[in-house]
């Protein structure tokens, strides 16, 4: 069984990964090789923007894994994303060293500003990349594990679960807004200088981050596919479609849910960690419930339960957002709100569903059962 076996039969995924590979080759060339004056030159800003979209796409894949295939509508995935981002942000903060405004060799600026004398215990060791990288997956993973263990064990499902995931991210947002938490309060972590010794402002670093995002997306996608084509994934889909029946057959529903849920949170954490060095800031706004709901819409627009649809949705909606907030700032919320309504009413299968319908018209295969309801 090769690494690409899970892609068998997933034509959408194959196409998506193919395009991703193409982009990953073309973009660095356009940015680094093509001279700046040329019309073919791609600005570093655009590279970073694309890199940001790719991290969003990875986040959307993580959400689609639990929503599309496990039936858990998480309104709190933004929290895992932000936690991963904070872990990376802490590493980047420590890398600033004495180049901060106050020039303190150890303490980040905001701590000097708050008159703190020494580094809090949870900041210890974040100057080492490996520890930060570990925390990027560990912190969201452990939070998801504890939260999921509590929730799935007592069979909190459906809307209730959605609402308490929203409460979770809301509580975290309130907590991170507090200066006493030691994460920079309102302003968050920013003003990063370099990463692993490379200047974050340099084009080459940006391209490297873009490539890392593309790689993470590809690997994350493959991992999700691999899970879904395994026995675990089939049980997950069974849980989505008929949870009680799966339980009565003898599967440990809560364990299956917990495993996939935790994995999804870790993926979200990685996406956050790649997002932060590219945008250069992480603040408690990332925890806001609106962000988490927005990313559910990416998945809904792209097409729930297809995985590659999540990637398409994340990129299309975010491109629309970048365009609209620049061209018609007033219209963005109308557009987003309208998307929510129209997609749920008229396009329940999303963009991927459109593709499938086109494909079906050609080949006319028996329609697969899509997106059953978990209520």
């Amino acid at each position, binding site marked *: 069984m090769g690494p690409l076996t899970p892609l068998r039969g997933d034509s959408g995924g194959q196409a998506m990964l193919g395009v991703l590979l193409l982009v990953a080759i073309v973009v660095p060339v356009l940015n680094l090789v093509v001279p700046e004056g040329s019309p073919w030159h791609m600005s570093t800003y655009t590279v970073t923007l694309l890199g940001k979209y790719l991290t969003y796409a990875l986040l959307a894949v993580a959400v689609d894994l639990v929503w599309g295939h496990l039936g858990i509508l998480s309104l709190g995935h933004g929290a895992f994303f932000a936690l991963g981002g904070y872990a990376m942000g802490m590493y980047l903060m420590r890398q600033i060293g004495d180049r901060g405004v106050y020039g303190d060799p150890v303490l980040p600026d905001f701590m000097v500003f708050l008159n703190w004398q020494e580094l809090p215990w949870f900041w210890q060791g974040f100057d080492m990349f490996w520890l930060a990288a570990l925390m990027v997956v560990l912190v969201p993973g452990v939070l998801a594990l504890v939260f999921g263990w509590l929730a799935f064990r*007592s069979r909190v499902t459906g*809307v209730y679960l959605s609402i308490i995931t929203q409460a979770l991210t809301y509580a975290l947002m309130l907590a991170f807004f*507090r200066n006493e938490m030691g994460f920079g309060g309102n302003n968050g972590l920013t003003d990063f200088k370099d990463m692993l010794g490379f200047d974050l402002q340099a084009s080459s670093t940006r391209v490297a981050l873009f490539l890392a995002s593309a790689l993470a997306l590809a690997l994350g996608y493959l991992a999700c596919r691999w899970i879904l084509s395994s026995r675990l994934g089939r049980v997950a889909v069974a849980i989505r479609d008929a949870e009680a029946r799966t339980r009565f057959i003898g599967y440990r529903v809560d364990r299956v849910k917990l495993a996939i849920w935790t994995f999804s949170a870790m993926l979200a954490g990685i996406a956050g960690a790649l997002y932060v060095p590219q945008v250069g800031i992480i603040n408690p706004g990332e925890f806001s419930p609106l962000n988490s709901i927005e990313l559910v819409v990416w998945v809904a627009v792209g097409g729930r339960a297809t995985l590659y649809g999540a990637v398409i949705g994340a990129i299309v909606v975010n491109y629309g957002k970048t365009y609209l907030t620049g061209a018609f700032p007033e219209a963005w919320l109308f557009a987003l709100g309208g998307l929510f*309504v129209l997609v749920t009413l008229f396009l329940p299968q999303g963009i991927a569903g459109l593709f499938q319908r086109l494909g079906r018209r050609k080949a006319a295969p028996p329609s697969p059962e899509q997106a059953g309801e978990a209520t």
Partner: protein
Amino acid sequence: MRHPYPSGSHASTCPAAALVAASILVALLLACAAVGQTAWAQTTADTSARPGAAAAGAETEAVPESDGAPPSAVRARLDGTAKASAEPEPEPGDPARRLDEQVPGVGAPEQPSLEAALAALSERSFKVKEQAATDIAASGDPRAADLLKALLDGDLYYRKDDGRIVRAERTGDGWTLTEALTGESLGTVGRRDAKKITINNPMRTKLRADLAALTLASPDPAVRFSAAREMLGTANTASLAALETQLAREENARVRDAIELALAIAGLESETPAGRLAAVDAIGSSLYPEARNALNRLITAEADAVVLAAAQAARADIERRLKNNARLETLFFGLSLGSVLVLAAIGLAITFGVMGVINMAHGELIMLGAYTTYLVQLLMPNAIDYSLFVAIPAAFLVAGLFGVAIERGVIRFLYGRPLETLLATFGISLILQQLVRTIISAQNVVVENPSWMSGSLAINPALSLTYNRVYILVFALLVFVALLLTLRRTALGLQVRAVSQNRAMARAMGVRSARVDALTFGLGAGIAGVAGVALSQLTNVGPNMGQAYIIDSFMVVVFGGVGNLWGTLVAGLTLGVANKLMEPWTGAVLAKILVLVFIILFIQWRPRGLFPQRGRAAEG
């Protein structure tokens, strides 16, 4: 078969009913206190309210009982001409008239002396000026206190050329003068043309006492009370005499209390232990901070063992009462926050609880209600006091119609798909927010408090409840009762219950379920609008205000048990009180976080909330 209707299980609602009955009792007590104490109540600016409210409060305080008649009547008498008889006689209840009757030695014949006395202030001799001030104080003119205060504050000047007494304000290189007595503008003069009326220290002391005595004799009980309040612990010989005089004729119980306390505090300085003991007894367990300070001073200096013991006992008593008051205040703040939560959540208890629709636009319906209040106030700027009575039905209609439109346009296609409903209604909430931003403004708007909402109800000197919070608490309970009655006693309520319990059966019985769905959703939305009217009186009104309530509202409904109105009430009040109880230790934000974490954990323990629905099949 499941019966998702609140009244289903009596067993489950009993504890709820008991708890609720208790909280309603508390609220009723508060309401009774509100009625009983109104005469006694002190209107103070509500510092916790928004600037607008504070300003409104200050306004009502600044113009107590201004009916315009007394000044003109007094002026007529001052003139002492036949014009006086042309003026209508003041009515028996007229404050000015009462003053004349009460203050001995202030009869009509002496009144013209006010102007003469005022003129004497321009003399150089302090003796003459002191006599002039005394004459002003004795004149009995309502403006006397104002003049003395101006003199004390160094605001009185005289014009050099004619010796006229004026108030002066520095403008550029000269003075802007106004007649001290009539307030008539006299234009500007050069820097050297007006001279300040100087006073010395003995005169200052005398002035203060005179001023206190003067205000103590004021016809307005509120002014008398604040004068007596001012003298707590600061009374001197002169003001003590004034206090004694006033006590002899004081009729208002609250002013009497304050005067007696002022005398008692002064009595703590008595030479004899017996006198001090009597003073300690008289202070009793007064809640004025001055009483406690005076007792503290006494305890550190007291030599007599009996007096010391009495003073310590009194102080302990005061501290115990203060602590109780602080508890009561926390409870009140908690209930107040709880009532806000209940108001915000109760519409959701209908749409989410009874219908099972996840309405993420609920917060925006609240916002629409608040903006309706704003628009109503724009339409009737001269009748802000009545605007809320127009705004409540208007907000119900506006939000209700939006609700019906949302149900007919979107939600009815999504029944049975709760997660999709959640997303679609969230989209609607974004659209509504942006709609308000585009049409009205992205900024917060100012919704004014009617005058009867500002100010506070002083239960005792250490505990006062702001009116807006008291009214909103009562209002929340009224809305709750109204909703409960609607669901239990009306035809619509019966149909709503029928459809939510068994749609197919209800339809077979001839209930038009689609219409009932729309009306139910409209009812829930309308209630949200009404909640918005109430919330506009407490918090900022802006496009984002709904977002602040949506999570809290869901928490309340889920905590209370979906489909159970009583659960919503109990959960809202409980969470409010819990939040406020924690705040002193943790701070507001952490308290909120802890409440959220508590609910998240609670749901794990009881996934269906405090009062879960139970089937009625077993009970027949």
